[in-house]
């Protein structure tokens, strides 16, 4: 029997998490990983299974905890989505539809002026590096809205605890020659100071090179 789990990593998202959970639960069981929040993110996530990291470990670690737990609960499909309303849970059915023909589905943000220019530049650099190093042409390597099958998860499971996990996942897709589809999504940038920083971007590029050597 098909069992879809939606995993949402969250840190200090008490104002938005409930809205995301309410919309997402229509499409599967929701797991929120409260990654050491200082506010009441965990208790605000009503109608979800909340896993609590007693201290902040990073997005990669939070997602891994959530996905491992989903697998333990018998998930056959996993969707990962951000907690800050940047992604619209209403897009989940399109991901699941595309997942019928692929191992992994990657969301990509449409180019718009609302995307901060530093993010647009950094994303371009990382996308190009991914193409050169792994031969994979991905429209948006840093988009956190993704879906994959349980079988694929075992192959793409990442070690990175930070924002490098998105790139590591793509590197693992290339390594295991998994098939992937891409789905365009609308993105709202609610907070310009959250998410990947320039330092994260540099770390991601260095990691991409290291994973290529290690391959």
């Amino acid at each position: 029997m098909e069992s879809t789990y939606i995993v949402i990593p969250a840190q200090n998202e008490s104002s938005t998490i409930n809205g995301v959970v309410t919309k997402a639960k229509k499409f599967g069981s929701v797991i929120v990983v409260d990654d050491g929040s200082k506010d009441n993110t965990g208790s605000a996530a009503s109608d979800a299974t909340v896993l609590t990291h007693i201290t902040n470990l990073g997005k990669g670690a939070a997602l891994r905890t959530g996905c491992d737990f989903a697998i333990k609960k018998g998930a056959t499909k996993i969707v990962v989505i951000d907690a800050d309303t940047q992604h619209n849970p209403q897009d989940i059915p399109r991901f699941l539809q595309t997942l019928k023909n692929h191992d992994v589905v990657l969301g990509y943000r449409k180019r718009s002026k609302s995307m901060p220019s530093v993010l647009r530049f950094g994303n371009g650099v990382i996308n190009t590096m991914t193409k050169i190093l792994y031969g994979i042409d991905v429209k948006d390597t840093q988009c956190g809205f993704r879906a994959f099958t349980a079988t694929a998860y075992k192959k793409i499971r990442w070690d990175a605890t930070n924002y490098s996990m998105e790139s590591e996942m793509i590197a693992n897709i290339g390594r295991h020659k998994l098939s992937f589809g891409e789905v365009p999504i609308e993105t709202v940038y609610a907070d310009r100071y959250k998410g990947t920083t320039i330092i994260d971007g540099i770390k991601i590029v260095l990691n991409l090179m290291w994973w290529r050597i290690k391959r």
Partner: protein
Amino acid sequence: MAALLGIQILGGFFGAFMAYYTFLHYKRKEITLKEYSFWIVLWFTFLAVTIMPRLLDPVVKTLNLARTMDFFIILGFMFLIGTIFYTYLLVRKNQKRLENIVRKVAMDKPNKKQ
């Protein structure tokens, strides 16, 4: 024995203070007897060569170094780099341990509301 230089007095005070500090932590049972022995031997050796740098003359001569001070600086840098690397390994190990514990606690105690 020649009159002590300012740097030797400074080094002497440093060595003595570090030996006392090590002793204090041993008495507070924060380090084991083995760790205490290692550090106390290290500080007393440091004290001895600070006050009597001539002890190192054979080593300095063998290594073709101009001054005992150069030997101290090289040795100090080597010790520092080694300690930094050791600390780095320790931090990484503890980071991994912490990650495993936090993830295990989270998965063992889900707060299920549905």
